[in-house]
């Protein structure tokens, strides 16, 4: 019987259980990124751990972590005579770039803000600087594109 090389790989990288939480978070988001980029077609779990330079055990643990969180679906498939899992995204990451650092989300008087109140969007001291800063940053990014 052919031995599964994936399971018997000498662990070049640090095993998952010895990694710090920060490293795990980073790896988890990298795995999720790869799954999301492939979209509905999905990606094989074996491709992921190879691409990220991980062991199959680590790749599997990270995929299970994402599956437990309900972010991806893992389906067992036979690929080239070997059992692996196909990972497909269940949830796509929400786009919050337009809302980043929006003052209304953290405003202490947000509940009182209305056009008929003393706290209103017309005299709000935070809206103006926020949109100006975002607009200037966007203009700068257009003027100096990344090399």
């Amino acid at each position, binding site marked *: 019987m052919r031995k599964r090389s994936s399971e018997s790989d000498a662990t070049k990288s640090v095993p998952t259980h010895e990694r710090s939480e920060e490293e795990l978070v980073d790896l988890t988001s990298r795995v999720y990124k790869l799954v999301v980029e492939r979209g509905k077609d999905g990606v094989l779990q074996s491709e992921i751990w190879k691409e990220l330079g991980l062991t199959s055990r680590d790749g599997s643990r990270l995929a299970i972590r994402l599956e437990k969180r309900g972010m991806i679906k893992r389906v067992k498939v036979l690929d080239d005579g070997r059992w692996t899992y196909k990972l497909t995204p269940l949830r796509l990451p929400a786009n*919050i770039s*337009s*809302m980043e650092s929006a003052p209304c*989300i953290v405003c202490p008087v947000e509940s009182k803000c209305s056009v008929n109140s003393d706290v209103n969007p*017309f005299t709000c001291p935070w809206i103006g600087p926020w949109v100006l800063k975002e607009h200037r940053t966007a203009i700068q990014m257009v003027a100096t594109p990344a090399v």
Partner: protein
Amino acid sequence: MKIEYEDTFVKVAGLIGGPDYVRVARALLNNENATDEEIASATGLKIKTVRKALYELFGRSLITGVRVRDPKRGWFVYRWKAQRDQTDGFIQTQKKKVLTRLMQRLEYEDAHEFYHCGTATCATKTFESAMESFFKCPTCAKPLNRVDNSELKNALKWKIKQLEEDINK
């Protein structure tokens, strides 16, 4: 802290309270029905910070808490759980709220002329209120000069367009 490819719940927590909230949100996803003490030990954050984050997330209906009796100590503790089905709705609601406010502000900026004395701590006056004070700042008594708000109007239009596109995606 990169949160581009993170669960929406973690992203929302980051929007509300920054990196500490992100850590609390991640701990909640890793360990469902955790107590504040368990989250504090998992994240290494102070219990005070964890509680503040939990109450704030609870106040926005992003997490739920169940009161249970601690079997060892006998007192009541809360076990917290992320309400991940609420996060997309939360983001959409916030986007719409901000969009409405930006549109109201743009309308106001379009309809008025503004005057300012140049002192950073003094408020900007509309033409009507500047005329009432004879174009002298009521706070510092400096003369009030016309403020060009075209850059702000352009920025508001740009942000409104960005948010509208985002909402209609």
